[in-house]
């Protein structure tokens, strides 16, 4: 048992003394906590600039444009004479949409006919498109309902019925969990999980590739601990580190950045245990494959973005090909993002994340078993292996 404690103490110390590991696991954690959320902190787009091409120039058309301008989503920043000049402004990225109000807009309305407007919205950025299209559609609906009510009252329908008539079956779309549809609230809880994985993965792999130092640190007089003890001791050290960092990322940072959290602390921390063990195990396996610290860093650097996109969070897992979906379960982040988001953002009980919880335990068991085998295979001829220069490739 003292062997286990020795390994734990040595590995925990190495996190803070081996410079690259410290840089990734501690400095990196602080850096990303500050930097990563910056683009999203405004949560939503407001006052997206659009142009109006008013071919009518009447009271009704100006009134319609003014009401579009009055929404918080879009702002009318240009009034242009024709569609061609407005399209050029869109190409120049000065405006993100064109509202065309055709000639006779008012006349058609006064005659009780249908009077269409056209909206050209920049769909090369989907969030911009949604804002512009949503805002104009909402204004057209409201103004349209007023016109219909007015027409009905004009032909002698009782006002109370006339107000109800345009919308006999109102649809209320009730957003759950992220009521404002905020972008930071959407992306950060999941991105924080991925960041935790990438930092721990890289740190563990760096420490594992720099093996050879740890036995020196333990001291020559102690019998070399067995492979199982080595891995168990290391895992304890990583759990101890993540006991500090993970609550900061999943509880403190969301609080500081004002993200809503519905879930309790206990389920989140319970779920975190297999997550940390699986990521640490995977880190040791990665180290076993690439064996040199710089290789590990270079290979893992670009992997974050694809792993995030294949996790079934920002792109629905229903649309991901089944083969990719199955392979992606081999990476802890796939289950972890889904599980942590459900627990903290949706306030789900632990029972709702049972599949993710079990997957993570299986991954933890599998990867750490491989890690034990790797250590066992490496310890026998270890004496003959010299400490390799850090960057020979």
């Amino acid at each position, binding site marked *: 048992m003292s062997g286990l404690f020795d390994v734990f103490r040595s590995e925990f110390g190495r996190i803070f003394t081996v410079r690259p590991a410290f840089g990734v696991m501690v400095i990196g954690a602080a850096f990303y906590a500050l930097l990563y959320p*910056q683009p999203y902190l405004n949560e939503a787009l407001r006052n997206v600039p659009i142009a109006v091409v008013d071919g009518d120039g009447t009271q009704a058309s100006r009134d319609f444009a003014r009401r579009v301008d009055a929404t918080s989503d879009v702002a009318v920043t240009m009034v242009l004479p024709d569609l061609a000049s407005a399209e050029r402004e869109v190409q120049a990225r000065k405006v993100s949409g064109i509202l065309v109000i055709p000639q006779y807009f008012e006349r058609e309305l006064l005659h009780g006919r249908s009077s269409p407007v056209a909206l050209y919205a920049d769909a090369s950025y989907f969030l911009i498109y949604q804002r512009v299209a949503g805002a104009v559609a909402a204004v057209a609906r409201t103004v349209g309902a007023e016109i*219909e009510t007015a027409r009905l009252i004009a032909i002698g329908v009782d006002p109370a019925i006339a107000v109800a008539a345009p919308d006999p079956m109102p649809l209320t779309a*009730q957003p759950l969990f992220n009521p404002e549809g905020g972008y930071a609230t959407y992306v950060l809880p999941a991105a924080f999980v991925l960041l935790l994985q990438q930092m721990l993965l890289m740190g563990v792999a760096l420490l594992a590739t720099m093996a050879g130092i740890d036995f020196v640190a333990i001291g020559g007089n102690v019998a070399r601990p067995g492979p199982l003890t080595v891995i168990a001791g290391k895992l304890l050290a990583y759990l101890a580190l993540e006991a500090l960092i993970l609550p900061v990322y999943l509880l403190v940072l969301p609080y500081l950045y004002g993200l809503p959290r519905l879930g309790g602390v206990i389920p989140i921390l319970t779920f975190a245990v297999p997550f940390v063990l699986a990521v640490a195990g995977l880190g040791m396996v990665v180290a076993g494959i690439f064996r040199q610290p710089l290789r590990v860093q270079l290979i893992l650097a670009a992997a974050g973005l694809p792993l995030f996109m294949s996790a079934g969070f920002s792109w629905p897992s229903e649309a991901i090909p089944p083969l990719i979906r199955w392979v992606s379960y081999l990476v802890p982040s796939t289950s972890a993002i889904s599980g942590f988001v459900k627990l903290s953002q949706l306030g789900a009980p632990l029972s709702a994340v049972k599949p993710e919880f079990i997957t993570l335990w299986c991954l933890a068991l599998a990867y750490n078993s491989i890690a034990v085998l790797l250590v066992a295979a490496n310890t026998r001829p270890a004496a003959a292996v010299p400490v390799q220069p850090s960057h020979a*490739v």
Partner: protein
Amino acid sequence: MLVRRDIKPGFRLVFWREVGWLRRRPFLLGLTTIVPLVLMALLSAVFSAGLATRLPIGVLDLDSSDLSRTIIRTVDATPDTAVAVRVGDLAEGRSLILSGKIHGLLMLPLNLQRDVFSGRRPEVVFFYNTQTLTTGNLTVRGVNAAVPAVAAGIRLSLRTARGEPIEAAQSDILPIPVQTHPLFNPTLNYIYFLLTALIPSILQVVIVTASSYSVGLDVETRHRLRILRRLGGGLWPAVAGKTLPYTIIFLLVLGLSDSLLFAVLGLPLHGHYWLLAIAGLLFILSCQLLGTLLALVLKPLASAVSIATLLTAPAFGFMGIGFPRLGMSAFALGYGALLPGTWYLTARIDQTVRGTPIDLSWRPILILTAFVIGLAGLCAWRLESRKRFAQDGDAAAASQPLAGATS
């Protein structure tokens, strides 16, 4: 070190030495070719559907009338949503949403049909999960199209039943229809929006980190920098010969993945292919120079690679694809503006989906040119100051052992 007499130091020597290195170092070659290609292939597979259709939602039908069944059929028929389950109560629907099996729940209240036809305006409620923003927005789009369509049918039939002609009734129920045209991406396809932007983002990480690594191998110690300078017959040809093999590799990687995007996944090329190619070359060069600069400024090599990773790995958010730069704070705007990828993506979107006219296309390309010139200037300044330093300390450097020599 013995140099054979027939080999002249110069650009070509360093160039071929680097090519030889790449052949003898499968890791470096793999890092610059296989790794980005595999990651890009993975992303292409993830987004290969392009559109997410028939997302599962649940229905709580408390009415079980003709009308409620019509609504359910219409919602199921929209491309966005599919009615996957009928639930018995709200609690069941909630637990299905929590477990992720459905993305929304449509609730049709008791006496819906009776109340609609007696003008009591019963409310149809759609609960949807906006924690997953893309999915939530897609399901609400489907329901938003279906339920008002059913309602419009009812309003139409009420009017025609009273003897109103159908054309008049139609214009009555929708006085101001909006004809919405999505510019540049008419089908709102995620391949043309997201995938085409993700691929250069991955390449940016790979180029900057791999460049700082490969340059770092040669400049980490004064001694090695001196060897490189001698081989190149001067610092400039040496650095050019060192960089160019990778420029060619990255151009091939970008060209290969782009031809896949254009030929197989159907990404449109509405602009000018040569502008896209120029932007791509400038993007690769500025990323390489950024990596080189980091290797020249930061020592040891491991720190240069670490900082390169720290700077580029979280860069995607700053480049303004998912959340546009329009809505960012001043700090995020500034940080994004310092990334070559931000401007390359602007030029790329201009030349692929937008088909921006030439006279409006120059800004991102000029900014990328400025990046290349500026970064090259900074690298030159670092190299010159180190050269002077190296000459001053030549004697000291000569006595340095060949520690950690590359294998």
